[in-house]
């Protein structure tokens, strides 16, 4: 289930991963690594300058059982939100 932009704005992530400047598959690997450090049900936020990260992290989340919540645009990068599902 994707969250609305307003809902995303209110999220306080359990972990923020700054993967800005990294090319694919860097942000995905950082997300995978970071996800293992937070409890089930909590949310991580990945910062990325790579335009394919949101699609890729969405694909990964659906495949492995996490919940892709959506993306917020920031100043020159995107904030991608995922809830740990397993």
């Amino acid at each position, binding site marked *: 289930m994707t969250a609305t932009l307003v809902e995303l704005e209110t999220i306080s992530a359990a972990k923020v991963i700054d993967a800005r400047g990294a*090319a*694919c*598959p*860097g942000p*995905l690997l950082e997300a995978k690594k970071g996800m293992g450090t937070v409890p089930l049900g909590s949310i991580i936020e990945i910062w990325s300058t*790579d*335009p*394919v*990260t949101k*699609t*890729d*992290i969405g*694909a*990964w989340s*659906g*495949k492995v059982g996490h919940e892709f919540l959506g993306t917020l645009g920031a100043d020159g990068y995107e904030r991608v939100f995922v809830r740990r599902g397993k």
Partner: protein
Amino acid sequence: MTDCLSLVLFSGTADKLHAAATVAAGAAAMGRPVNVLLQYWALDAFRADRIAADHGLAFDAMAPGSSRPVHGTAAIPWLETFRMAKELGDVSIQACSGSLETLGVDSDRLDPLVDGPCGIASFLLAAEDGQLIFI
């Protein structure tokens, strides 16, 4: 379960692109969805400013005694074969975003045959229900 065929193209020489285009077009003609991921020199070959250039031959073709059959035959050029494959069926050609970054190529400067940039997880998800070939 689909019977899709996925190709990871790494090499940018005309002989390998020609072989890949043949497989892609054949699969498309047989009604199979085709996913192509362009990496490295194959991606470079799809740059709009050099797609029509002579892309040379792989080292295999330089071996003593090789018949070098690619040039001067009746074979359709690889670019035309890819174009026909896209007309014939469900063929997606994606640019590996990591390779775009590595080569310093903007996706806007690729030939229109390329559908857009793609991350590795998205490609593998599309590829997981069928065979995957690396050329």
